């Protein structure tokens, strides 16, 4: 029998207090979670939702066993909320690439997006969009923009029920049904040209696809539909554990191997596209991405 939850009274064995919160986010992670539908609602019905502004008319943060937090820390109000959750909860799960890496908000480095607000009751925007674990301890990471629903649900259940969650150490390519063409890729572009009507590797056809360097687990949802991987699940274990100690160098090396080009040529071709190599991993990918590549316990 599991121990009672954080608010649990005798007789409440196994009853866990579950919460969700969104910091600076688009809401895609929460939508992904809610799209699970009946299995999620049935699961939540067996426990207690302690707070969730999306699901529940309760207005304050209260002690919880598990809090799913999406979004990065961008404003003073989000920082206050993150610290309060940290103080009152047992385990925090960082859901989505904004919470895990800083997300697209980290694209432009240390510059507030707009001028200071004239009304001092509005939250102040901080200079840098920070990933969640720069401020609070995170138990589990579920990267993705948004993560597939089943991965979020599995992470939630694993923390509540105490089992090891799914972990994907392969790349997007390991799930991708496309096959490498013969010959070398001549150049890399960001556009599918007149579209893809064959099951041929997108990178092999000359489209900049981040599949070879991106963590798998998404069942290659984008590439199987002919769209290039934009790297939303962050760097794969292979990239992060390589001896080159540089996400950039490893990315170039992997892209070169897959597209059968020399690394120098790949580096030259993507020199004008560096921003988009790190769309989701913030302004400092070499250090930030490396720090949270794995789920604790791996």
């Amino acid at each position: 029998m599991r121990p009672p939850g954080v608010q649990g009274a005798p007789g409440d064995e196994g009853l866990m207090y579950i919460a969700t919160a969104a910091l600076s986010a688009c809401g895609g992670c929460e939508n992904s979670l809610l799209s699970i539908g009946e299995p999620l609602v049935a699961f939540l019905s067996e426990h207690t939702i302690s707070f969730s502004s999306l699901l529940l008319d309760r207005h304050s943060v209260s002690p919880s066993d598990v809090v799913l937090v999406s979004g990065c820390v961008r404003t003073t109000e989000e920082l206050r909320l993150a610290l309060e959750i940290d103080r009152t909860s047992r385990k925090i799960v960082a859901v989505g690439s904004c919470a895990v890496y800083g997300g697209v908000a980290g694209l432009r480095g240390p510059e507030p997006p707009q001028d200071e607000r004239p009304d001092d009751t509005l939250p102040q925007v901080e200079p840098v969009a920070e990933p969640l674990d720069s401020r609070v301890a995170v138990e589990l990471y579920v990267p993705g923009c948004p993560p597939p629903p089943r991965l979020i649900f599995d992470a939630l259940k694993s923390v509540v029920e105490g089992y090891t969650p799914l972990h994907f150490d392969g790349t997007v390519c390991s799930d991708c049904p496309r096959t490498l063409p013969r010959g070398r890729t001549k150049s890399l572009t960001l556009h599918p040209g007149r579209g893809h009507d064959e099951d041929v590797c997108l990178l092999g056809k000359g489209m900049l696809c981040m599949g070879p360097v991106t963590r798998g687990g998404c069942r290659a949802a984008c590439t199987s539909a002919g769209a290039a991987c934009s790297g939303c699940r962050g760097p794969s274990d292979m990239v992060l554990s390589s001896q080159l100690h540089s996400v950039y160098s490893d990315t170039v090396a992997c892209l070169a191997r897959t597209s059968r080009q020399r690394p120098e040529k790949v580096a030259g071709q993507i020199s004008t596209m560096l921003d988009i190599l790190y769309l989701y991993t913030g302004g400092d990918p070499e250090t930030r991405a490396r720090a949270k590549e794995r789920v604790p316990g791996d």
Partner: protein
Amino acid sequence: MIEDPEAGGARDPEVQKVRLYPVTRIEGRGDIEILFTPDQKVIEARFRGLDNRGLEKLVQGLPALRAPTVLARACGTCGTFHQLAACRALEAACGVEVPEAAGTFRELVCWLLLTASHLQTIAYLALPDFALPTSDAAVKNITGIYMVDQETIARLFAAMNAVNESVQCLAGNHFRPAVIVPGGVSAFPGRSERDLALELLEGCSSDLRETMRLAEMLTRRESRIMETGAPLTGHYMASTVEGIPELIGDEISISPFGGGETETVDPVAFIDSVEEHPVPWSGVVPLKVAGVDSTMVGPLARLNHGFGDDTPAAQLESMRCFEQWERPLDRESFFLVALACEAIRGLEKARGLTGELREVSASEKPCAEIEPAAGAGSAVVESPRGLIAHVLEVDDAGRIGSCRIMSPLQFNYTLMNRHLTNVARKNVRGIEVVDADAARLQFAVRSFNPCVPCGTH
């Protein structure tokens, strides 16, 4: 929930403020601020968006072809619609024509996503207000309803899952499909995927009809037990073709709630006429159409414009609504039937488009070549929450020079806050705002289906 006015930062010592934070069961974070006179009469109530994401600046300098991927992150619900708007703006800037079948596939994906989004909104965000209006927070939520009526919720989710699965088999995933690219789509689904999608969609018609009956019954009950307050005033607005709302229309139709002529505007002229009216107290920048005092966009606005005979079931349902409650539907509580009715329309549209897509020959190309060059373009599309517009400027290097996003919450903002003030004046008695009145105000906000991340982008 109710804070000391001083902590809210009231600057004018004569004005007292009460803050209701956060507004629950909406996307993103927002609060309601109520301003009182010294003798505790409501001056104004306003919904405030508390985010500030700066996407318009983030995207500047990025390769134009990758901008739609980033702009899709404006919103978790309508992300694909932002992606479509950005692609169309780029295509306009570069003078590219999208292959007809690719346009069909784009619309198909978007109608499916609209349907799924409406069903999700009904289940999680709207239904608690209608099904358990006076219950405690511990019960007044999706799990509370599930425990009381498992069958209804199961039916609703079965329809949502069928739609989501059909998106998945057509476009790779349902949570943020990436198939929509500048110039068209990245690839067409195979014949077996199209057949499977059609089969899934055929199977959920009856579940949607049941959801419509539920919405109708709850709306009738709601209008009897709740003080509905003043009717909505201002204008309802949608992208239309010959007066009928479409995802991509060739005109913008603007009609007054109080009755009168419908005005139509060309989409490009419409974008030119949209003015920003920033307020210091919110992260949302209200938008106004020149010469129009306030507007409502979204499901209720589209329903009021009426549905065409290409979607007979939705047209029939809309006529039933108009017979019961008179057109235009001008009460906030009609929001639920508008969602249910439009979910039926989305399904009918999607079934028709899937059928069309099955006829696409293998030789048709899914995408047109596109080479970003200096220029500017704009696009207007309908999304689950209402009108979205993007204006993109591309520089000589093929990068984004400037970007402007217009979102549904911004278009709704003036009308919504005016309505909120009316509701507050009618219900709130003094700065000790009781829970029932706070719930009433939040209901008024939810009925506009606000998406704060989208509105503050």
